[in-house]
């Protein structure tokens, strides 16, 4: 029995047909249906211009940012199995991950380096979109979503910075939250709420942890969904005007 015939047989089963309510994707119509009918694909365009896929030096930056986000999501969840967000444990758990846990140093460094790279990739993506004029109508709204995503990326980086609970983390967050308190009128109040007190202590560690692992990733996922969906709704990936003139 060949792979092809096995697949054919699988397609005939009742279970398969209950999940995929269409035939094999071998015509343009069924290919489009395959994208429309899939929750994970439906916000992607069913058709892409070949020219918009042409690889350039500045290309795939958004996709690279998203890929790094997925890497961070997976490694972050794995790191959570060994990390206690409390002052006596946090630093030791981080050291355990480096020296005791099997492959822990790999996961921790993957998470750390992917985070650095993601900030870099998101900035490059933003510069690329800016200099290509990707913020112009009809893409204005998606540009704003992108700017908020940049801020969410930076907040994720910043909240994650405290979690190793070492000297670097402690002073970085001391300095950072003092920058917040320089804001007129509400600055000190926001700092107090963010730290859960007046000093960088237990409460601050827990608050940064919850922001880092729950609240900010949820916001990021929501906005990334809107961002991708809007790319399609705003007419697909931008193509250089001069490419657009020629026949497709």
């Amino acid at each position, binding site marked *: 029995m060949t792979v092809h015939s096995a697949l054919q047989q699988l397609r005939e089963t009742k279970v398969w047909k209950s999940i995929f309510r269409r035939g094999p994707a071998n015509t343009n119509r069924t290919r489009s249906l395959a994208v429309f009918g899939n929750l994970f694909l439906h916000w992607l365009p069913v058709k892409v211009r070949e020219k918009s896929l042409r690889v350039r030096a500045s290309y795939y930056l958004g996709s690279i940012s998203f890929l790094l986000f997925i890497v961070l999501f997976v490694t972050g969840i794995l790191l959570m199995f060994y990390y206690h967000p409390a002052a006596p444990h946090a630093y030791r758990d981080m050291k355990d991950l480096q020296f005791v846990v099997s492959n822990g140093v790999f996961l921790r460094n993957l998470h750390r380096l992917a985070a650095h790279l993601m900030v870099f990739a998101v900035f490059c993506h933003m510069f690329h979109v800016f200099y290509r004029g990707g913020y112009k109508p009809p893409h204005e709204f998606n540009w704003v979503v992108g700017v908020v995503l940049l801020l969410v990326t930076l907040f994720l980086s910043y909240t994650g910075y405290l979690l190793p609970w070492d000297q670097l983390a402690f*002073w970085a967050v*001391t*300095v950072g*939250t*003092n*920058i917040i308190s320089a804001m007129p009128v509400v600055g000190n109040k926001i700092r*107090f*709420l963010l730290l*859960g*007190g*007046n*000093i960088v*202590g*237990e*409460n601050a560690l827990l608050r940064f942890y919850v922001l880092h692992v729950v609240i900010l990733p949820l916001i990021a996922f929501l906005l990334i969904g809107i961002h991708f969906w809007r790319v399609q709704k705003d007419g697909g990936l931008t193509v250089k005007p001069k490419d657009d003139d020629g026949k497709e």
Partner: protein
Amino acid sequence: MSDASDSSTPAVPPSLQAGNAIPRRDFLNEITLGALGVAGLGSVAVTYQFFSPNVLFEPSPTFRAGNPDLYPVHSVTFLQDQQVYIVRVPEGFYAVSAVCTHLGCVTQWKPDTGMIACPCHGSKFQADGTKIEGPAPRPLPHFAISLTADGELLVDKLQSIKSEQVLKA
């Protein structure tokens, strides 16, 4: 809306006649939106309260700094736990904050140069907290210092005082 003044309907008070009357749908919409608005504002207030801790497990801002005799004349003593310098001059005592006014790093007393220096961004202060060089925007504040009934120094970090005020020895 002219349908409302149908001849078959019973007499309506003048205040509710067409023109003055609010349609039922608008009325209910406004009531509902108003209620949701009040509930929304309330939940913001309650959430704000929830996120402001009522009890803090932090070092007390008011602390005893021990017997005055512990501090020799012309000395600057750094109290690590409280992040305060106790400075003894011939005229008496004062307490200077050790937290840099720039971005909150803990400064260090450098006896060889006679300066307080910040390791983060290089601000420098004199022993009395006067700024020598930035980026700190303000001098280090002086905290209220007094003697307890049993003769120990008492510093209150919640109370800033003028730098001329010195606790007489």
